[in-house]
Protein backbone atom coordinates (compact mmCIF):
# COMPACT_ATOMS: atom_id res chain seq x y z
CA UNK A 1 0.00 0.00 0.00
CA UNK A 2 2.72 2.43 0.98
CA UNK A 3 4.69 1.41 -2.09
CA UNK A 4 1.70 2.24 -4.29
CA UNK A 5 1.40 5.68 -2.61
CA UNK A 6 5.08 6.26 -3.03
CA UNK A 7 4.96 5.21 -6.68
CA UNK A 8 1.95 7.44 -7.28
CA UNK A 9 3.78 10.40 -5.61
CA UNK A 10 6.88 9.86 -7.71
CA UNK A 11 4.82 9.68 -10.88
CA UNK A 12 2.95 12.85 -9.88
CA UNK A 13 6.21 14.58 -9.11
CA UNK A 14 7.52 13.71 -12.58
CA UNK A 15 4.34 14.88 -14.20
CA UNK A 16 4.34 18.00 -12.09
CA UNK A 17 7.93 18.71 -13.07
CA UNK A 18 7.04 18.22 -16.72
CA UNK A 19 4.09 20.54 -16.40
CA UNK A 20 6.21 23.14 -14.64
CA UNK A 21 8.74 23.09 -17.45
CA UNK A 22 5.96 23.43 -20.01
CA UNK A 23 4.50 26.37 -18.09
CA UNK A 24 7.87 28.09 -17.88
CA UNK A 25 8.49 27.64 -21.59
CA UNK A 26 5.04 29.03 -22.41
CA UNK A 27 5.58 31.95 -20.04
CA UNK A 28 8.90 32.85 -21.65
CA UNK A 29 7.40 32.69 -25.13
CA UNK A 30 4.49 34.85 -24.01
CA UNK A 31 6.90 37.34 -22.44
CA UNK A 32 8.90 37.61 -25.67
CA UNK A 33 5.73 38.19 -27.64
CA UNK A 34 4.57 40.87 -25.21
CA UNK A 35 7.93 42.65 -25.35
CA UNK A 36 7.90 42.60 -29.13
CA UNK A 37 4.35 43.93 -29.32
CA UNK A 38 5.03 46.69 -26.80
CA UNK A 39 8.20 47.76 -28.58
CA UNK A 40 6.48 47.91 -31.94
CA UNK A 41 3.51 49.66 -30.44
CA UNK A 42 5.35 52.50 -28.76
CA UNK A 43 8.05 53.03 -31.34
CA UNK A 44 5.80 53.20 -34.35
CA UNK A 45 2.93 55.13 -32.86
CA UNK A 46 3.13 58.65 -31.57
CA UNK A 47 -0.13 58.68 -29.70
CA UNK A 48 -1.12 55.68 -27.72
CA UNK A 49 -3.28 55.51 -24.66
CA UNK A 50 -4.40 52.63 -22.59
CA UNK A 51 -7.54 53.60 -20.77
CA UNK A 52 -7.80 50.43 -18.74
CA UNK A 53 -4.45 50.82 -17.04
CA UNK A 54 -4.55 54.63 -16.92
CA UNK A 55 -1.19 54.80 -18.71
CA UNK A 56 -0.68 56.76 -21.86
CA UNK A 57 2.34 57.31 -24.08
CA UNK A 58 2.24 60.87 -25.37
CA UNK A 59 3.60 61.85 -28.80
CA UNK A 60 6.95 63.54 -29.36
CA UNK A 61 7.19 66.76 -27.38
CA UNK A 62 9.61 68.39 -29.82
CA UNK A 63 11.25 67.94 -33.18
CA UNK A 64 14.71 68.90 -34.39
CA UNK A 65 14.83 71.01 -37.53
CA UNK A 66 17.45 72.38 -39.89
CA UNK A 67 17.21 74.71 -42.83
CA UNK A 68 19.57 74.89 -45.76
CA UNK A 69 19.96 74.42 -49.46
CA UNK A 70 20.62 70.68 -49.33
CA UNK A 71 21.70 67.81 -47.17
CA UNK A 72 25.47 67.34 -46.95
CA UNK A 73 26.98 66.09 -50.20
CA UNK A 74 28.73 63.21 -48.44
CA UNK A 75 25.68 61.71 -46.68
CA UNK A 76 25.70 58.87 -49.19
CA UNK A 77 23.14 56.15 -48.64
CA UNK A 78 22.47 57.41 -45.12
CA UNK A 79 20.77 60.50 -46.51
CA UNK A 80 17.29 60.92 -45.04
CA UNK A 81 15.60 64.21 -45.80
CA UNK A 82 13.43 65.52 -42.98
CA UNK A 83 9.77 66.40 -43.21
CA UNK A 84 9.39 69.83 -44.82
CA UNK A 85 7.64 72.46 -42.70
CA UNK A 86 7.25 76.12 -43.59
CA UNK A 87 7.76 78.44 -40.62
CA UNK A 88 7.77 82.13 -41.42
CA UNK A 89 9.68 82.63 -44.62
CA UNK A 90 11.79 79.49 -44.37
CA UNK A 91 11.32 75.82 -45.00
CA UNK A 92 12.60 73.63 -42.19
CA UNK A 93 13.32 69.95 -42.54
CA UNK A 94 12.37 68.25 -39.34
CA UNK A 95 12.46 64.95 -37.52
CA UNK A 96 9.10 63.28 -36.96
CA UNK A 97 7.50 60.21 -35.48
CA UNK A 98 8.37 58.25 -38.59
CA UNK A 99 11.82 59.82 -39.00
CA UNK A 100 13.46 60.19 -35.63
CA UNK A 101 16.88 60.66 -37.27
CA UNK A 102 17.33 62.82 -40.37
CA UNK A 103 20.11 64.46 -42.36
CA UNK A 104 21.32 67.90 -41.32
CA UNK A 105 20.51 70.49 -43.98
CA UNK A 106 23.61 72.59 -44.74
CA UNK A 107 24.25 75.87 -46.50
CA UNK A 108 26.75 78.67 -46.91
CA UNK A 109 26.72 79.70 -43.24
CA UNK A 110 26.01 76.36 -41.63
CA UNK A 111 28.09 73.40 -42.74
CA UNK A 112 30.85 70.94 -41.94
CA UNK A 113 32.71 71.75 -45.20
CA UNK A 114 30.20 69.54 -46.99
CA UNK A 115 28.11 71.81 -49.19
CA UNK A 116 30.02 70.88 -52.33
CA UNK A 117 32.37 68.12 -53.45
CA UNK A 118 35.43 70.38 -53.52
CA UNK A 119 35.14 71.02 -49.78
CA UNK A 120 36.94 68.86 -47.26
CA UNK A 121 37.52 68.77 -43.55
CA UNK A 122 41.19 69.32 -42.72
CA UNK A 123 43.49 71.14 -40.31
CA UNK A 124 42.87 74.91 -40.32
CA UNK A 125 39.19 74.58 -41.16
CA UNK A 126 36.37 75.92 -39.04
CA UNK A 127 32.72 76.76 -39.27
CA UNK A 128 29.32 76.72 -37.70
CA UNK A 129 26.34 74.39 -37.69
CA UNK A 130 22.85 75.73 -37.03
CA UNK A 131 19.77 73.83 -35.96
CA UNK A 132 16.42 74.52 -34.37
CA UNK A 133 14.09 72.92 -31.88
CA UNK A 134 10.36 73.01 -32.58
CA UNK A 135 8.48 72.53 -29.31
CA UNK A 136 5.24 70.64 -29.79
CA UNK A 137 4.00 71.30 -26.26
CA UNK A 138 3.83 74.42 -24.14
CA UNK A 139 5.75 72.95 -21.24
CA UNK A 140 8.81 71.62 -23.03
CA UNK A 141 11.57 71.33 -20.47
CA UNK A 142 15.30 71.81 -20.92
CA UNK A 143 16.71 69.58 -23.60
CA UNK A 144 19.85 67.54 -23.16
CA UNK A 145 22.05 67.41 -26.24
CA UNK A 146 24.81 64.98 -27.15
CA UNK A 147 27.31 65.24 -29.97
CA UNK A 148 28.86 62.13 -31.41
CA UNK A 149 31.82 62.12 -33.82
CA UNK A 150 32.16 58.87 -35.78
CA UNK A 151 35.17 58.43 -38.05
CA UNK A 152 34.88 56.17 -41.08
CA UNK A 153 37.70 54.36 -42.80
CA UNK A 154 37.80 52.39 -46.03
CA UNK A 155 35.64 49.27 -45.82
CA UNK A 156 33.63 46.83 -47.85
CA UNK A 157 29.94 46.30 -48.45
CA UNK A 158 29.89 43.36 -46.05
CA UNK A 159 31.35 45.28 -43.11
CA UNK A 160 28.96 45.96 -40.26
CA UNK A 161 27.71 49.53 -40.29
CA UNK A 162 29.20 50.22 -43.73
CA UNK A 163 28.02 53.35 -45.48
CA UNK A 164 28.13 53.81 -49.23
CA UNK A 165 29.43 57.19 -50.36
CA UNK A 166 30.14 57.94 -54.02
CA UNK A 167 30.18 54.27 -54.93
CA UNK A 168 32.64 53.12 -52.28
CA UNK A 169 32.07 51.68 -48.83
CA UNK A 170 33.29 53.06 -45.54
CA UNK A 171 33.10 51.52 -42.12
CA UNK A 172 33.08 53.17 -38.67
CA UNK A 173 36.43 52.96 -36.90
CA UNK A 174 36.39 51.62 -33.37
CA UNK A 175 36.65 54.15 -30.56
CA UNK A 176 39.91 52.56 -29.45
CA UNK A 177 41.71 53.28 -32.70
CA UNK A 178 44.35 56.02 -32.68
CA UNK A 179 42.58 58.11 -35.31
CA UNK A 180 39.29 57.96 -33.36
CA UNK A 181 41.05 59.08 -30.20
CA UNK A 182 42.85 61.89 -32.00
CA UNK A 183 39.62 63.26 -33.49
CA UNK A 184 38.42 63.89 -29.93
CA UNK A 185 41.16 66.50 -29.48
CA UNK A 186 41.69 67.78 -33.01
CA UNK A 187 38.05 68.41 -34.02
CA UNK A 188 36.67 70.77 -31.40
CA UNK A 189 33.15 72.03 -30.72
CA UNK A 190 32.05 75.12 -28.84
CA UNK A 191 28.75 76.73 -27.96
CA UNK A 192 29.88 80.25 -28.80
CA UNK A 193 32.41 82.19 -30.88
CA UNK A 194 33.10 85.80 -31.70
CA UNK A 195 36.21 87.72 -32.66
CA UNK A 196 36.77 89.25 -29.25
CA UNK A 197 35.82 86.40 -26.90
CA UNK A 198 37.03 83.71 -29.30
CA UNK A 199 35.78 80.18 -28.58
CA UNK A 200 33.71 79.71 -25.44
CA UNK A 201 31.95 76.74 -23.89
CA UNK A 202 33.63 73.61 -25.20
CA UNK A 203 31.22 70.79 -26.02
CA UNK A 204 32.73 67.37 -25.39
CA UNK A 205 31.61 64.59 -27.76
CA UNK A 206 29.58 61.82 -26.14
CA UNK A 207 28.89 63.98 -23.08
CA UNK A 208 25.49 65.53 -22.44
CA UNK A 209 25.26 69.31 -22.48
CA UNK A 210 22.63 72.01 -22.56
CA UNK A 211 22.52 75.03 -24.83
CA UNK A 212 20.96 78.44 -24.54
CA UNK A 213 18.84 79.21 -27.60
CA UNK A 214 20.00 82.16 -29.65
CA UNK A 215 16.44 83.34 -29.89
CA UNK A 216 13.01 81.96 -29.29
CA UNK A 217 10.05 82.88 -31.36
CA UNK A 218 7.04 81.95 -29.30
CA UNK A 219 4.68 82.70 -32.11
CA UNK A 220 6.62 80.46 -34.45
CA UNK A 221 7.44 77.98 -31.68
CA UNK A 222 11.04 77.86 -32.82
CA UNK A 223 14.27 77.82 -30.79
CA UNK A 224 17.45 78.46 -32.79
CA UNK A 225 20.87 77.13 -31.82
CA UNK A 226 24.41 77.27 -33.22
CA UNK A 227 27.42 75.04 -32.63
CA UNK A 228 30.89 76.26 -33.62
CA UNK A 229 33.54 73.79 -34.75
CA UNK A 230 37.24 74.10 -35.52
CA UNK A 231 40.14 71.84 -36.48
CA UNK A 232 43.16 73.92 -35.37
CA UNK A 233 46.04 73.78 -37.81
CA UNK A 234 48.73 74.50 -35.23
CA UNK A 235 49.23 73.27 -31.70
CA UNK A 236 50.18 76.80 -30.63
CA UNK A 237 46.55 77.82 -31.16
CA UNK A 238 45.64 75.81 -28.06
CA UNK A 239 48.35 77.33 -25.86
CA UNK A 240 48.92 80.93 -26.87
CA UNK A 241 45.99 83.20 -26.12
CA UNK A 242 44.88 86.39 -27.77
CA UNK A 243 46.46 86.17 -31.23
CA UNK A 244 44.47 86.07 -34.47
CA UNK A 245 44.78 82.29 -34.60
CA UNK A 246 44.34 81.57 -30.90
CA UNK A 247 41.42 79.48 -29.74
CA UNK A 248 41.02 81.50 -26.58
CA UNK A 249 40.87 85.15 -25.73
CA UNK A 250 43.87 86.91 -24.23
CA UNK A 251 41.69 88.99 -21.91
CA UNK A 252 42.96 89.50 -18.39
CA UNK A 253 41.79 87.10 -15.73
CA UNK A 254 41.20 83.38 -15.61
CA UNK A 255 39.65 81.73 -18.66
CA UNK A 256 37.92 78.55 -17.56
CA UNK A 257 37.66 77.13 -21.06
CA UNK A 258 41.40 77.69 -21.57
CA UNK A 259 42.29 76.08 -18.25
CA UNK A 260 40.03 73.14 -18.96
CA UNK A 261 41.62 72.71 -22.38
CA UNK A 262 45.14 72.62 -20.93
CA UNK A 263 43.98 70.11 -18.31
CA UNK A 264 42.38 68.00 -21.02
CA UNK A 265 45.57 68.03 -23.11
CA UNK A 266 47.70 66.97 -20.14
CA UNK A 267 45.26 64.27 -19.02
CA UNK A 268 44.30 62.92 -22.43
CA UNK A 269 47.45 63.22 -24.50
CA UNK A 270 46.27 60.44 -26.82
CA UNK A 271 43.54 62.80 -28.04
CA UNK A 272 46.13 65.32 -29.23
CA UNK A 273 49.53 63.76 -29.88
CA UNK A 274 51.37 60.95 -31.59
CA UNK A 275 54.64 60.93 -29.67
CA UNK A 276 55.97 57.42 -30.37
CA UNK A 277 56.74 56.83 -26.69
CA UNK A 278 58.79 60.01 -26.38
CA UNK A 279 58.07 62.15 -23.36
CA UNK A 280 55.55 64.97 -23.72
CA UNK A 281 56.30 68.33 -22.11
CA UNK A 282 53.71 69.50 -19.62
CA UNK A 283 51.36 71.84 -21.47
CA UNK A 284 50.89 75.15 -19.66
CA UNK A 285 50.49 78.81 -20.49
CA UNK A 286 54.13 79.69 -19.90
CA UNK A 287 55.66 76.71 -21.64
CA UNK A 288 58.84 77.43 -23.59
CA UNK A 289 58.88 77.81 -27.34
CA UNK A 290 61.09 74.72 -27.49
CA UNK A 291 58.40 72.69 -25.71
CA UNK A 292 55.72 74.16 -27.95
CA UNK A 293 57.84 73.01 -30.88
CA UNK A 294 58.02 69.48 -29.50
CA UNK A 295 54.29 69.34 -28.92
CA UNK A 296 53.63 70.85 -32.33
CA UNK A 297 55.52 67.98 -33.88
CA UNK A 298 53.43 65.44 -31.99
CA UNK A 299 50.24 67.33 -32.88
CA UNK A 300 51.15 67.35 -36.57
CA UNK A 301 51.80 63.61 -36.36
CA UNK A 302 48.26 63.33 -35.02
CA UNK A 303 46.87 65.30 -37.96
CA UNK A 304 48.71 63.01 -40.33
CA UNK A 305 47.35 59.90 -38.60
CA UNK A 306 43.80 61.22 -38.88
CA UNK A 307 44.25 62.15 -42.53
CA UNK A 308 45.75 58.78 -43.38
CA UNK A 309 43.14 56.61 -41.66
CA UNK A 310 39.91 58.59 -41.70
CA UNK A 311 38.06 59.19 -44.95
CA UNK A 312 34.79 60.57 -43.60
CA UNK A 313 33.47 61.88 -40.31
CA UNK A 314 29.85 61.60 -39.23
CA UNK A 315 28.63 64.18 -36.76
CA UNK A 316 25.44 63.26 -34.88
CA UNK A 317 23.45 65.57 -32.63
CA UNK A 318 20.94 63.90 -30.34
CA UNK A 319 18.39 65.78 -28.27
CA UNK A 320 16.32 64.35 -25.45
CA UNK A 321 14.14 65.93 -22.79
Amino acid sequence: MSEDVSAKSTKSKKELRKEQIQHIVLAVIALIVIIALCWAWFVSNTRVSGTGAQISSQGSRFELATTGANTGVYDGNKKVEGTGKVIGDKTYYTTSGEKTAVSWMVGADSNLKNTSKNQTLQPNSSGRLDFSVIPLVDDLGTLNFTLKVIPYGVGTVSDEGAVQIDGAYYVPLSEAEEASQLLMGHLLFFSSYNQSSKYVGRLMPSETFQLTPLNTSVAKKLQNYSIYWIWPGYFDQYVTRGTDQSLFSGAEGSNLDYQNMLTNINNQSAHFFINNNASIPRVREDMSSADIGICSNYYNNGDETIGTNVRYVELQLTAAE
Partner: protein
Amino acid sequence: MGNEFSIQKNKMRIALSVLLTAILLVCLLCLAWFYNNRNIYTFAHVESPSTLAIKGYNQTTVEQISLSTVDLTNDSHTASFVFCITGSNIEKYDLELAYTTNVPFTYTIRPTTQVTVRPGSGDFLTYTSDDGTSYYYGTGQGALSQGKYVNKNSEGIAETSGENDRHTAAYDAYDRNYVQKNAEPVYYLFEKNAVRDLNQSNFVDYYILELTWDTDIATSHQKETDLVYLLAANSTP
Protein backbone atom coordinates in the same frame (compact mmCIF):
# COMPACT_ATOMS: atom_id res chain seq x y z
CA MET B 1 0.06 15.88 2.35
CA GLY B 2 3.16 15.87 0.16
CA ASN B 3 1.05 16.43 -2.91
CA GLU B 4 -0.75 19.35 -1.39
CA PHE B 5 2.56 20.95 -0.52
CA SER B 6 3.80 20.40 -4.03
CA ILE B 7 0.70 21.94 -5.54
CA GLN B 8 0.98 24.90 -3.17
CA LYS B 9 4.60 25.36 -4.20
CA ASN B 10 3.60 25.26 -7.84
CA LYS B 11 0.94 27.88 -7.32
CA MET B 12 3.46 30.13 -5.66
CA ARG B 13 5.85 29.73 -8.58
CA ILE B 14 3.17 30.57 -11.10
CA ALA B 15 2.07 33.57 -9.07
CA LEU B 16 5.67 34.77 -8.84
CA SER B 17 6.16 34.36 -12.61
CA VAL B 18 3.02 36.35 -13.34
CA LEU B 19 4.08 39.06 -10.93
CA LEU B 20 7.55 39.34 -12.49
CA THR B 21 6.05 39.51 -15.95
CA ALA B 22 3.69 42.27 -14.88
CA ILE B 23 6.55 44.25 -13.36
CA LEU B 24 8.54 43.85 -16.55
CA LEU B 25 5.61 45.00 -18.62
CA VAL B 26 5.18 48.14 -16.53
CA CYS B 27 8.90 48.89 -16.78
CA LEU B 28 8.74 48.54 -20.53
CA LEU B 29 5.77 50.89 -20.76
CA CYS B 30 7.64 53.51 -18.76
CA LEU B 31 10.79 53.08 -20.84
CA ALA B 32 8.89 53.49 -24.08
CA TRP B 33 7.18 56.59 -22.70
CA PHE B 34 10.47 58.26 -21.86
CA TYR B 35 12.27 57.04 -25.00
CA ASN B 36 11.71 60.20 -26.98
CA ASN B 37 14.91 61.53 -28.47
CA ARG B 38 15.60 63.03 -31.87
CA ASN B 39 18.73 62.93 -33.96
CA ILE B 40 20.23 64.89 -36.84
CA TYR B 41 23.51 63.97 -38.53
CA THR B 42 25.85 64.97 -41.34
CA PHE B 43 28.96 63.59 -43.04
CA ALA B 44 32.16 65.39 -43.94
CA HIS B 45 35.06 64.24 -46.11
CA VAL B 46 38.49 64.27 -44.44
CA GLU B 47 41.31 65.43 -46.66
CA SER B 48 44.38 63.23 -46.98
CA PRO B 49 47.57 64.74 -45.55
CA SER B 50 49.36 67.18 -47.77
CA THR B 51 53.11 67.59 -48.01
CA LEU B 52 55.07 70.73 -48.79
CA ALA B 53 58.82 71.28 -48.96
CA ILE B 54 61.31 73.89 -50.09
CA LYS B 55 64.18 72.34 -52.00
CA GLY B 56 67.03 73.35 -54.25
CA TYR B 57 67.81 72.80 -57.91
CA ASN B 58 66.52 69.46 -59.25
CA GLN B 59 64.67 68.96 -55.93
CA THR B 60 67.90 68.50 -54.03
CA THR B 61 67.52 68.67 -50.30
CA VAL B 62 68.87 71.94 -48.98
CA GLU B 63 68.87 73.54 -45.58
CA GLN B 64 70.43 76.77 -46.71
CA ILE B 65 70.68 78.80 -49.87
CA SER B 66 74.27 79.88 -49.88
CA LEU B 67 74.49 83.65 -50.21
CA SER B 68 78.19 83.76 -49.34
CA THR B 69 79.05 83.46 -53.02
CA VAL B 70 77.44 86.78 -53.88
CA ASP B 71 80.08 88.76 -55.77
CA LEU B 72 79.25 92.40 -55.27
CA THR B 73 81.74 93.42 -57.95
CA ASN B 74 80.02 91.64 -60.85
CA ASP B 75 78.85 93.88 -63.64
CA SER B 76 75.25 92.80 -63.57
CA HIS B 77 74.83 93.70 -59.88
CA THR B 78 72.71 90.59 -59.69
CA ALA B 79 72.96 87.26 -57.88
CA SER B 80 70.42 84.52 -58.47
CA PHE B 81 69.61 81.25 -56.77
CA VAL B 82 67.25 78.48 -57.76
CA PHE B 83 64.83 76.86 -55.34
CA CYS B 84 61.61 74.90 -55.72
CA ILE B 85 58.37 74.30 -53.86
CA THR B 86 57.37 70.68 -54.02
CA GLY B 87 54.60 68.61 -52.45
CA SER B 88 51.36 66.72 -52.86
CA ASN B 89 47.63 67.12 -52.17
CA ILE B 90 47.87 70.88 -52.30
CA GLU B 91 46.19 73.24 -54.75
CA LYS B 92 47.58 76.54 -53.49
CA TYR B 93 50.36 77.64 -51.20
CA ASP B 94 51.60 80.83 -49.62
CA LEU B 95 55.23 81.77 -50.23
CA GLU B 96 56.89 84.25 -47.90
CA LEU B 97 60.27 85.96 -48.05
CA ALA B 98 61.69 87.36 -44.81
CA TYR B 99 64.95 89.30 -44.71
CA THR B 100 66.85 91.66 -42.49
CA THR B 101 67.84 94.99 -43.99
CA ASN B 102 71.50 95.56 -43.15
CA VAL B 103 72.54 95.25 -46.77
CA PRO B 104 70.25 97.18 -49.10
CA PHE B 105 69.60 94.37 -51.52
CA THR B 106 66.46 94.29 -53.57
CA TYR B 107 64.88 90.84 -53.53
CA THR B 108 62.82 89.46 -56.39
CA ILE B 109 61.27 86.04 -56.89
CA ARG B 110 60.67 84.87 -60.44
CA PRO B 111 58.95 81.66 -61.56
CA THR B 112 61.07 79.45 -63.81
CA THR B 113 61.14 75.94 -65.22
CA GLN B 114 63.83 73.26 -65.27
CA VAL B 115 65.17 71.77 -68.49
CA THR B 116 68.09 69.48 -69.08
CA VAL B 117 68.81 70.67 -72.61
CA ARG B 118 70.82 73.84 -72.82
CA PRO B 119 68.54 76.62 -74.12
CA GLY B 120 69.47 78.10 -77.46
CA SER B 121 68.60 81.63 -76.45
CA GLY B 122 67.76 83.84 -73.52
CA ASP B 123 69.42 84.14 -70.15
CA PHE B 124 69.50 81.15 -67.90
CA LEU B 125 71.15 79.72 -64.80
CA THR B 126 73.09 76.48 -64.89
CA TYR B 127 73.49 73.98 -62.07
CA THR B 128 75.56 70.83 -62.42
CA SER B 129 75.10 67.89 -60.14
CA ASP B 130 77.84 65.58 -58.89
CA ASP B 131 77.14 63.09 -61.66
CA GLY B 132 77.76 65.75 -64.28
CA THR B 133 74.15 66.37 -65.29
CA SER B 134 73.39 70.00 -66.02
CA TYR B 135 70.10 71.71 -65.26
CA TYR B 136 69.03 74.98 -66.83
CA TYR B 137 66.62 77.63 -65.53
CA GLY B 138 65.47 80.59 -67.60
CA THR B 139 65.66 83.95 -65.85
CA GLY B 140 63.44 85.92 -68.20
CA GLN B 141 60.05 85.48 -66.58
CA GLY B 142 58.38 88.34 -64.78
CA ALA B 143 58.54 88.56 -61.01
CA LEU B 144 55.75 87.27 -58.81
CA SER B 145 53.55 90.32 -58.60
CA GLN B 146 50.60 89.42 -56.42
CA GLY B 147 52.48 89.68 -53.17
CA LYS B 148 52.73 92.51 -50.69
CA TYR B 149 54.90 93.60 -47.81
CA VAL B 150 53.37 92.63 -44.51
CA ASN B 151 55.30 95.04 -42.28
CA LYS B 152 57.53 97.36 -44.30
CA ASN B 153 57.38 101.10 -43.63
CA SER B 154 58.29 104.01 -45.88
CA GLU B 155 61.95 103.79 -44.83
CA GLY B 156 62.17 100.24 -46.07
CA ILE B 157 62.49 98.69 -42.59
CA ALA B 158 60.07 96.90 -40.25
CA GLU B 159 57.07 98.92 -39.13
CA THR B 160 56.63 99.36 -35.35
CA SER B 161 53.11 100.72 -35.12
CA GLY B 162 49.76 100.68 -36.85
CA GLU B 163 48.10 97.85 -38.68
CA ASN B 164 51.35 96.70 -40.29
CA ASP B 165 53.10 96.41 -36.92
CA ARG B 166 54.58 92.99 -36.31
CA HIS B 167 57.24 94.38 -33.99
CA THR B 168 55.04 94.45 -30.90
CA ALA B 169 54.04 90.79 -31.22
CA ALA B 170 57.72 89.77 -31.50
CA TYR B 171 59.42 92.18 -29.12
CA ASP B 172 56.60 93.44 -26.89
CA ALA B 173 57.72 96.63 -25.12
CA TYR B 174 61.30 96.57 -26.45
CA ASP B 175 61.38 99.46 -28.87
CA ARG B 176 64.08 100.69 -31.24
CA ASN B 177 66.31 101.50 -28.26
CA TYR B 178 66.71 97.76 -27.80
CA VAL B 179 66.10 96.25 -31.25
CA GLN B 180 68.33 97.56 -34.03
CA LYS B 181 66.12 98.62 -36.91
CA ASN B 182 67.94 96.65 -39.59
CA ALA B 183 68.06 93.47 -37.49
CA GLU B 184 64.29 93.11 -37.57
CA PRO B 185 63.09 91.30 -40.69
CA VAL B 186 60.56 92.56 -43.20
CA TYR B 187 58.14 90.04 -44.65
CA TYR B 188 56.93 89.82 -48.21
CA LEU B 189 53.98 87.47 -48.70
CA PHE B 190 52.88 85.90 -51.96
CA GLU B 191 49.49 84.48 -51.13
CA LYS B 192 47.66 81.53 -52.62
CA ASN B 193 50.02 80.70 -55.46
CA ALA B 194 48.28 78.10 -57.57
CA VAL B 195 50.22 74.91 -58.13
CA ARG B 196 51.20 75.05 -61.80
CA ASP B 197 50.42 71.46 -62.74
CA LEU B 198 47.62 69.96 -60.66
CA ASN B 199 47.71 66.80 -62.72
CA GLN B 200 50.93 65.77 -61.04
CA SER B 201 50.52 63.79 -57.85
CA ASN B 202 53.77 65.38 -56.63
CA PHE B 203 54.14 68.88 -58.00
CA VAL B 204 57.38 70.86 -58.40
CA ASP B 205 57.31 74.63 -58.96
CA TYR B 206 60.71 76.19 -59.59
CA TYR B 207 61.63 79.77 -58.70
CA ILE B 208 64.65 82.03 -58.86
CA LEU B 209 65.51 84.23 -55.88
CA GLU B 210 67.22 87.25 -57.35
CA LEU B 211 69.26 89.82 -55.42
CA THR B 212 70.13 93.14 -57.01
CA TRP B 213 72.04 96.14 -55.65
CA ASP B 214 73.23 99.61 -56.56
CA THR B 215 76.74 100.54 -57.58
CA ASP B 216 77.49 102.34 -54.35
CA ILE B 217 76.93 99.10 -52.43
CA ALA B 218 79.42 97.35 -54.64
CA THR B 219 82.09 99.87 -53.81
CA SER B 220 81.37 100.05 -50.08
CA HIS B 221 83.98 98.64 -47.76
CA GLN B 222 81.54 98.11 -44.90
CA LYS B 223 80.80 94.56 -43.85
CA GLU B 224 77.27 93.66 -42.95
CA THR B 225 75.33 90.45 -42.31
CA ASP B 226 71.78 89.70 -43.29
CA LEU B 227 69.45 86.78 -42.74
CA VAL B 228 67.12 85.68 -45.50
CA TYR B 229 64.33 83.15 -45.03
CA LEU B 230 61.98 81.46 -47.44
CA LEU B 231 58.76 80.04 -46.01
CA ALA B 232 55.97 78.06 -47.64
CA ALA B 233 52.62 77.01 -46.24
CA ASN B 234 49.50 75.33 -47.53
CA SER B 235 47.04 78.15 -48.15
CA THR B 236 44.27 78.29 -45.55
CA PRO B 237 41.14 76.58 -46.96
